[in-house]
């Protein structure tokens, strides 16, 4: 077996945390809590490593002799500027520093979503030209129907029983699909957890 010690530690950690869910033993719960605290602390360290790696990667792209990635300088510049502001202003709790999020990140991301919406509408217009067939037609009809449903126009002053029943049925259609997805996710999560607990999957040893 490859990396047997690491595999043993992973299996034991998983079993302890899992057993702490079902067995209210104080000692077991204490160990489980300790393990989870370690994991959270390591996650914070991993985020620091990811930040350093991101900056180093963009620096390397900038240093390339052939086709240097000139936009990387914006990433590096933005990173160090934000870091400077955060250090000078006293951290993320400062209301002025939080404007970095509300006045820079938020408009940019919202603008990207707006552009995505325009692109999706354009794609919807050309949908039947690119792909012809019954499934395309069904997809187009369902898209139009649920856009109308979630726009709220049917909920405005239409207190008609048949409309209410119809809206209820239509809203159940995506719920049925969502439930299926949730069940699939649960089964997949159980399978993945069992594979790690049994040592079949060892993502930590790769």
């Amino acid at each position: 077996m490859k990396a047997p010690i690491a595999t043993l530690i992973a299996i034991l950690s998983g079993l302890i945390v899992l057993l702490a869910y079902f067995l209210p033993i104080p000692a077991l719960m204490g160990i489980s809590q300790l393990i989870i605290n370690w994991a959270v602390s390591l996650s914070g360290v991993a985020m620091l490593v990811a930040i350093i790696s991101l900056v180093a990667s963009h620096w390397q792209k900038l240093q390339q002799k052939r086709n240097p990635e000139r936009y990387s300088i914006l990433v590096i510049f933005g990173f160090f500027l934000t870091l400077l502001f955060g250090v000078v202003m006293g951290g993320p709790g400062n209301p002025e520093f939080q404007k970095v999020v509300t006045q820079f990140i938020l408009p940019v991301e919202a603008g990207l979503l707006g552009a995505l919406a325009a692109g999706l509408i354009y794609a919807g217009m050309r949908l039947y030209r690119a792909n012809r067939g019954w499934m395309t037609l069904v997809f187009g009809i369902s898209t139009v129907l649920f856009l109308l449903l979630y726009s709220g126009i049917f909920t405005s002053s239409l207190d008609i029983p048949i409309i209410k029943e119809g809206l209820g049925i239509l809203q159940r259609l995506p719920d049925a699909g969502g439930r299926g997805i949730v069940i699939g996710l649960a089964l997949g999560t159980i399978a993945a957890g069992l594979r790690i607990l049994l040592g079949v999957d060892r993502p930590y040893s790769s």
Partner: protein
Amino acid sequence: MNEILCPNCGKSNPPEMEFCENCLSPLQIESTSEPSFENTQPDWLKRVRERSQEEKPNTPPLGDFGVAENRPFDQSLTTGETPDWLKELQNSEPPQKSETNEPEIDWITRLHEIQGDSNQSRSQSTTFYSDEELAAMAAARKLEPKANSVTDLSSEKPEEETNLAESLLQGPVQQPQDSELSNNKINFSQQNEIQPADIPQSGEQVFEKPVNQEEESSPWLNIIPPVENSIDLTISEQKNGTDLVFSSNTQPEEKAIHAEVSKKESGLPSEEKSASPLSSFFDLENQERSTGGAIAFEESLIPEGVLQPQYSRAAEYSGRLEISESQRDSITLLKSMLVGEIQPKLPTKLRSKFSGRFVRAVLGVFLLVTMGYPFFTGFLLMKPVALFSPGVVAMRNSIASLPENAPFLIVSDFEPAFSGEMKAASMGVIDNLMMKGMNFTVISTVPSGPALARDLIKTMRPVTFSYPPEKVAVLGFIPGGTTGLQDFIRNPRLAAPLLDGGAYAWTYPAAQPVKMIEDYVGVLLITENAEIGRAWIEQLHNSLSDKPLLMVVSVQSAPIVRPYLDSGQLNGLISGRVEGAMYDRMMDSPPRAAIEMSSYQMGMLLAVGLIILGGLYGILKKIFRRQHVGSTEDWHGG
């Protein structure tokens, strides 16, 4: 010929050179020996050379450096292109015919008949051969693999056959090349030595001497031939797998040849012996053996300088296929057809009068104008909502059942891009909680979550009516994703001990009464991510016991989260802006963002209309294109 051939390597050198340009050997030997060889060569050998020049087969004409020319084989060079050596050959006298007509029954002809790879007819011969015939035959076979051309040898010697030659032909003639080497050496030397006058006459049994008379041969002959014979036979066996019986059969005849040669050598005076070609040849052979080895010895066996003027160069044929222009065109056409079959078909490019970028730009401008219209005019597209979803109703009932001034947990796990929708959807709920005077604890597993939560609370209540800051404790961001929220659920004070400003969180008024997760009277989760919502629901379900878990999600996550509402794991759900407006309507408060709602609805209706129009355009275009193709396509055309 104005060139001097090197006696060592056979390369031609200018006459003024004293040493060979190739191997730096002295050329004096060659310059002296070659004329002597020319002078001493027998007449029959001269005639052999002359006949070989006459009977030389048509070879492809070669230009400079042996490159084949395009002219036909039989077409002669122009006068200006004729080299000097060829002019000399052409101007030379025609070969003199022999005085007798006996060579018409030429033994060389029969030699070709016997040889397996000869171009002559393969009629079986029962005649015998003299030692001169055998010598010439061996020399011819020696030259065959190198020059790839057989030069016909002629001799004035009448047909004389012996039993010994017959037996020799059955052996060495069919013997592989390596094993013939010793025979060739001896016979060729013998050929050079024996003058036409010395050719034995008919009936002379030259090889009838017993083998044991080998002792009478010259001492130099006792040294060389047996050694060479043994070496060559060994090589022959290894390379060609020749039968051992075959080798043993050939040995007596070869010994007999050596004996005959030695007999003739012994008859010469000592001076002639030393000056004879045979003697000089074996002297050279001894030298080569001492310096070179078997291969060098073989090369010196028939010096290239001697053979070069006698034998023509090997015929060289062009390796290029002669094809005509029409064939070349056919090949090109076939190639293009094959390439066209291999390459995949490119998708048919839809040509349009307007580029996609232009259409998208026009579409974006149209959307902006349509959605901005309510902001400029105050236009309301729809009346307030009159229907309410079950999640909104459950949310309203859950919040109504909460006690006042109790600790309440808000999880702000949405990205900045969805801030507009999340704000509009959660405003009514948070306002309702504020009216109850809840002590909020804000946590997030997204780095930008705490800042967005502060912005949300600030937007809810402007400065004048701001919510008391001591009632809001923003704990900041907990790393680790699902593990982090599990850690927080198990022990909030240990997982997030500080506020986002750096102060200790759990002495802050809003969070002071909280020791564990069950101390919160309720949890409100605001997220657009279905995965995060699912994780919170699953981790909190057993920990909150009877405390309400409420969610505000985006429309895209609602289908995934709504099953938890149906199963009772969620106690209230608001999805999107429309249900947020429903909650406001249930609170009997005026529409919080009626203009935004109108703009949103107009944008949605415009999107629906564009998609329908685009689909109809595609269908109509398809129909008209089909009619156009059907009317113009020539089904009967070739």
